[in-house]
């Protein structure tokens, strides 16, 4: 349910950026969401719709989930989120705070905790299209 907070970020940002570039209406927003956020899409889309109503706007929102990529700084191994073995609790922690992955997981190959989240976190607006 904290999906609402992230949806607010999206709509607020879109409105702000549209204003900056003097758009009169927003028709379409391209979103990229990191797999680590493990967003519940139904709730998230519902929140986006509700928020758009509040702001009196109606845009098509295209959502793309960005796969995660991790890289170990010690052994250089690269892997994806699904290679981690996380408990349900840990998955929830990562859902709230992606960086908590460093507490709960290690490189699947060498066991090091010194790895990088190369991609797959955050909520990103890739494009906003509308009428000027």
């Amino acid at each position, binding site marked *: 349910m904290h999906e609402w*907070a992230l949806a607010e970020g999206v709509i607020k940002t879109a409105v702000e950026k549209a204003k900056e570039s003097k758009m009169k209406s927003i028709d379409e927003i391209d979103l990229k969401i990191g797999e680590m956020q493990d967003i519940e899409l139904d709730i998230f889309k519902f929140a986006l719709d509700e928020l758009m109503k509040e702001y009196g706007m109606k845009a098509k929102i295209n959502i793309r989930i960005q796969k995660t990529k991790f890289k170990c700084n010690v052994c250089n191994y690269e892997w994806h989120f699904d290679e981690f073995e996380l408990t349900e609790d840990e998955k929830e922690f*990562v859902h709230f705070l992606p960086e908590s992955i460093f507490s709960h997981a290690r490189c699947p190959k060498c066991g090091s905790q010194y790895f*990088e989240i190369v991609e797959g976190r955050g909520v990103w*607006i890739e494009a906003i299209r509308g009428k000027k």
Partner: protein
Amino acid sequence: MIDARLEIIEERLKRIKRIVAVSSGKGGVGKSMVSATMAMALSKKYKVGLLDLDFYGPSTHIIMNAGDKPAEKNGLIPPLVENIKFMSIIYFTEDKAAPLKGKDIINAIIELLAITIWDELDFLIIDMPPGMGEEVMAILKFMKEAEFIVVTTPSILSWETVKKLLLFLKNNRCKILGIVENMVMEHSIKNEIEKFGRYLGAIKFDASIEKFIGNANKIMESDFGKDVEKIAMKI
């Protein structure tokens, strides 16, 4: 590509009247003890929140014996601990180490600021980690109105580092509420401190404080608690 979390941070903080960052540069000077106790002192009269930004050594949950977890409702609602809205990384890492690197720290702070619903507060107290890294930068960037309380001990090893932080904060035009001298025994560096800023007060070395950690009432009744309360009334 725009980070959709950034725009919402202002919104999340806008109903907070004052943000006070308890910092030092130096570790082990009592930042966590002072920030938790100050939050408790202020909460007698005001609506107070406490944000623990020390990801490597979160401590305020131990000092206040925090139990409940945040609730999920249009974001994360910080639980009430001693009548203070409380947020800490421990809710996501439990007792494990959190070996975050610089950019992970800034990302984690952004995430926390974006999803935590503080609502209305008179004070948000922030317990800062030692150092002058990403956490201080995050304050500079996302909380331009924040006011700093800087904690030192009378030891030269603490004061030399604290002076660096004071210089940094001045260079970067931050608001400094004043300097607290903690763990004072016979020797005080009050005169020296006054050359660098407002002296907010001394807190005596109190060997008995250890056994009160985790017990809010006992802390507030202790010599330590009384010293901190006097300082809280000045800010």
